[in-house]
């Protein structure tokens, strides 16, 4: 069975957008998804024996927009790659995707960002301490009104005019703990994303 010129154009436009939105996934996977959707539309539109323009439009409409459809494929692909590789950037991108879908994901993202930043800066302060022994570290700086500000300095700027550094060389073991915190958060996120992916396969996404 063949499509009219109008239906062919409509279907090609839908599949072209889907293809474009799936960019980032392996080429073979993209090709297979596009061909499967083409096959589905042909089957659905020809259910009554003949393919009509209205049948093609209705089949495409039942699939949702190509952007939404691609989004569902991309989410799983991203989660699968993050889970398999443990790559920091893939895990971070997955956390942002999760946060855009659910409240739980949002809180996991916020918690993770705090842990990553803390671990990262503690580690850098420890690494830079031997280079800037007088400046790098945790500074306690008195503020007007009796408040005290705690500030982590890497030592590139001048030391604060008031206040003093409180950790001294203890920043080195604390920095090592910071590295541990960073990688522990990475592992916890990898595990959480696995659970999230599993919940998606159970139809948990609304």
């Amino acid at each position, binding site marked *: *069975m*063949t499509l009219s010129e109008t239906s062919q154009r409509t279907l090609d436009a839908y599949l072209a957008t889907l293809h474009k939105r799936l960019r980032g996934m392996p080429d073979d996977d993209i090709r*297979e*998804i596009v*061909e*499967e*959707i*083409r*096959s*589905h539309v*042909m*089957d*659905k539109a*020809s259910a009554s024996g003949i393919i009509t323009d209205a049948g093609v439009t209705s089949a495409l409409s*039942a*699939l*949702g927009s190509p952007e*939404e*459809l691609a989004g*569902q*494929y991309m989410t*799983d692909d991203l989660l*699968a790659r993050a889970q398999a590789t443990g790559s920091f950037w893939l895990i971070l991108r997955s956390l942002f995707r999760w946060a855009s879908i659910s409240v739980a994901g949002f809180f996991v993202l916020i918690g993770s960002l705090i842990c990553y930043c803390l671990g990262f800066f503690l580690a850098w302060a420890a690494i830079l301490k031997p280079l800037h022994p007088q400046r790098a570290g945790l500074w306690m700086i008195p503020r007007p009104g009796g408040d005290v500000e705690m500030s982590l300095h890497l030592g590139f700027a001048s030391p604060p005019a008031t206040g003093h550094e409180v950790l001294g060389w203890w920043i080195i073991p604390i920095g090592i703990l910071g590295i541990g915190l960073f990688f522990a958060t990475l592992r916890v996120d990898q595990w959480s994303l696995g659970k999230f*992916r599993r919940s*998606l*396969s*159970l*139809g*948990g*996404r*609304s």
Partner: protein
Amino acid sequence: MTLADLVRDSPDKWEVQLRKGCLELAILASLWSGRLYGLEILRRLEADSELVVSEGTVYPLLSRLKALGLLTSEWVESDAGHPRKYYALTPAGRTRALEMRSIWQKFTASLDSLLAPLNQEK
């Protein structure tokens, strides 16, 4: 949306979530007797389980189940003039389907006994 709207809508939302939660089991069960392609799976779900599922949800889910090693797929030429992608259960998929059936049966049995007093209400 007011609190009253939420309360009024909640049974519908609960039903939607319940149906979604059953989707993986329903798909695995639909493939128990043999391979099917996407549209056949959708029709089987609608005919045998009244699961009215968005088509845009089923295809990514099939892809996900395949990536998890629960399904396998192959392209087969058809009389319709275009190839179709058929899905079949892997041994891991069959095991998963049996596990889920067992959990489902245990759950519904325990819930049925809890719901027994409600059955006297008309």
